[in-house]
């Protein structure tokens, strides 16, 4: 019953004309940038952050959250119709979604993607509403030792689930950890790898790094491609999937929702990991795995639900612990601080209308997305006809504006361009930038908490195993490492992504 009264408090807060409008606007913007290749939610949220200063905190957060899950939806549309992942989490959607479109079943594919995402979004919203309170109680028991073990698990998961070459993934994580060392060390106050530049003393700017590696690098790589895109606008077919499609998609949607919800909660989790893992799982469970990559509806329905569920539950660590689990959540922390809300366990008790309002808005946002996506597909597709020679300069300018606006620093814009070239090299070498970014984010937090835990325990390293939560997490880490080292599991992991 408490769940219902909390949710009704949330809906009370959200159901004002202004909040509904910002929810709609966020979903719309998110869909738009999801459809546009290259421009992701990180760049968009960074850019729109200053715009939200003048808004009440709840409206601002509702809009930013809407952009985030809107982008998950929009990305699928482009992936299915033109085989271009508008979003990194929709890379797997390309595999079977695009194949379905080529068979003239684009309508069914888009319909399944939208309905699966809506189901996952609804389920994840309910999960957050039901489990957030107990999780907040639990969160205060997390001290430095527990955080260290949690971050460690996040890093291992990032390596385990990254696609492509296993050793490259490890190398990228290591590179991310190294980049994370730059700046003044919190514990000793010593400057590391700053080359005497005051701009580097707070570390490499996260926004500059991510914008360079993803945005700028993507544009550079696309410059090589000739403009020859097949667009399946003529024959989208019926939007409603057949009864048979729905039956085939039902179980993958359920599994994807569960998997996505669980992975979203982990730091280092979120939408990207969820969709890749779900694809692996569906392929392994299928009676005839050879259908995958040739238009298997399970390969579309599972990941699509998983990425949306993961996108949503990744709010749990942020809302109850103040711990950002991915780049977008890190930006949300900044957004909350600007509005005088310190993310952490106290938000739920001190600002219940904000907390439950944000949760209620997630369901509304998902509802708006279904309304938007099904009828507006024709318009999105027309947007894709904008030639790249016009689109890319605009995207590049947006990226630079986004980086500059974070701390009014030209140095950071230069840094983003530098990492753009580095990211281009990574693409050529077949190295995924995602593990690097996770290493960069988790590494410094891990080091900080490791040293703090040691300081608190007066140098006694056994503290990581004598505290029950920390010990459980470390046991999970060891299990995962053993699983990775097990040759058969590694082989399965590699074949799952060969089509990618």
């Amino acid at each position, binding site marked *: 019953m408490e769940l219902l009264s909390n949710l009704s408090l949330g809906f009370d807060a959200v159901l004002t004309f202004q909040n509904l409008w910002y929810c709609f606007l966020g979903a719309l913007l998110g869909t738009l940038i999801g459809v546009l290749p290259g421009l992701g939610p990180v760049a968009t949220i960074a850019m729109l952050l200053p715009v939200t*200063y003048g808004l009440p905190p709840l409206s601002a957060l509702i809009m930013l959250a809407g952009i985030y899950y809107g982008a998950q939806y929009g990305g699928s549309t482009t992936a299915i119709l033109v085989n271009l992942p508008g979003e990194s989490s929709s890379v797997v959607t390309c595999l079977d979604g695009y194949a379905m479109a080529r068979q003239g079943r684009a309508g069914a594919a888009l319909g399944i993607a939208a309905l699966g995402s809506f189901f996952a979004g609804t389920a994840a919203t309910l999960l957050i509403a039901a489990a957030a309170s107990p999780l907040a109680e639990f969160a*205060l*028991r*997390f*001290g*430095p030792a527990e955080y260290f073990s949690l971050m460690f698990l996040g890093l291992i998961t990032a390596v385990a689930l990254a696609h492509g070459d296993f050793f490259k993934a490890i190398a990228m994580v290591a590179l991310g950890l190294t980049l994370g060392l730059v700046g*003044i060390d*919190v*514990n*000793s*106050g*010593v*400057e590391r790898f700053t080359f*005497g530049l*005051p*701009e580097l*003393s*707070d570390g490499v700017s996260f926004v500059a790094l991510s914008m360079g590696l993803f945005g700028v690098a993507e544009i550079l790589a696309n410059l090589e491609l000739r403009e020859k895109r097949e667009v399946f606008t003529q024959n989208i077919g019926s939007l409603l999937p057949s009864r048979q499609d729905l039956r085939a998609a039902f179980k993958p949607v359920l599994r994807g929702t569960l998997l996505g919800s669980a992975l979203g909660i982990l730091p280092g989790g979120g939408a990207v990991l969820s969709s890749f893992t779900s694809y692996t799982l569906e392929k392994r469970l299928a009676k005839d795995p050879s259908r995958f990559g040739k238009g298997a509806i399970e390969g579309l329905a599972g990941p699509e639900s998983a990425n949306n569920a993961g996108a949503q539950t990744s709010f749990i660590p942020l809302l109850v612990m*103040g711990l950002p689990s991915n780049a977008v959540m890190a930006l949300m922390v*900044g957004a909350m*601080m*600007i*509005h*005088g809300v*310190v*993310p*952490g*366990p*106290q938000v739920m008790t*001190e600002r219940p209308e904000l907390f439950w309002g944000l949760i209620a808005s997630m369901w509304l946002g998902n509802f708006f997305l279904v309304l938007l996506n099904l009828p507006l597909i024709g318009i999105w597709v027309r947007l894709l006809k904008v030639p790249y020679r016009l689109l890319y300069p605009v995207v590049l300018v947006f990226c630079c504006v986004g980086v500059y606006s974070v*701390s*009014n*620093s*030209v140095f950071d814009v*230069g840094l983003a361009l530098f990492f753009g070239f580095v990211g281009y090299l990574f693409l050529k070498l077949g190295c995924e930038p995602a593990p690097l970014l996770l290493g960069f984010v988790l590494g410094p937090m891990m080091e*900080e908490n490791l040293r*703090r835990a040691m*300081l*608190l325990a*007066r140098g006694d390293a056994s503290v990581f195993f004598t505290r029950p939560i920390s010990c459980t997490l470390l046991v999970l880490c060891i299990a995962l490492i053993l699983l990775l080292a097990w040759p058969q599991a590694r082989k399965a992991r590699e074949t799952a992504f060969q089509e990618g």
Partner: protein
Amino acid sequence: MTKDQGMTHRVAIVLLGLFAAIAHAAPEAQAVWPTRPIKLIVPFPAGGPTDIVARPFAEALSAFLKQPVVLENRGGAGGTIGAAAAAKSAPDGYTFLLGTVGTQAINPALYPKLAYNPVKDFKTVAILAAAPVALVANPAVPASNIAELAALAEKRPLRFGSAGNGTPGHLTGELFKTASGVALTHVPYRGSAPAAQDLLGGHIELMFDPLQSVLAYVKAGKLQALAISSAQSVAALPSAVTFLQAGVKVETAAWWGIFAPAETPDAIVAQFAKAIYGVRDTAVVKALEDIGLLLQTPRDSRQLEEFLLAEREKWGKAVRDSGAGID
């Protein structure tokens, strides 16, 4: 990059034209200040404690001066990036720095190579507000005052968190250790929020932090305030005892002020100072007292200089004694 400069160049030409036109239209522009928006460089990110002081003042001053006072957040390196940028700005009375105890008093001792000189590069306009540093404890710690704390520290190791190395909270903690002889271990965090979270969870026993960041927890009974570092008790928490009252010679405050590039005309500095004292009683600024800040600060220029001199001396010594220097 070159494109960027070209663009700036063109914008600059357009702006120059505009200014020339304005100058012609109003030959006595020098006497009338301000005639265009004033930029206030905040050397910390938006949303932080410094930003929280800056915004109400900017709002009140905009209304008072009838020209927008625009904040530009240029965070990084403990405020040195923003302070250095302000020091190099044109001294035309349209760019000022929102300096802090960090940028104007602590940093010279903390950073061996500082890109600006807090004494020579700036003129002091006014001190806006100050905040006492509070010593707070987790309610489970069996000590409700300094004497009980000192007795407890004899029996078991106690740790205190701070918002980071070289922050007013950390250095006040070091001053407290020296003045009282109580042994405590310092645990630095990345900002106030994570330290407060570990304190609430009981992973550390104590924390030294400016009052406004912990006041909400104290009022909710989730933390207990053992002492505050101001000379007198504060309106926001009248029950709190000062260190001096508890017999420990510690008196510190975190503070925020407005500083002008050194060559800024005296007339403009005086006019801006007058405006600042003029808005002190407006509702938006008064609201800062509710969150634990003190608005009664030194006013005439001689008092101001004495205050700044004493501050630099006090914090400089604290940095050297604690060995907190950054190298």
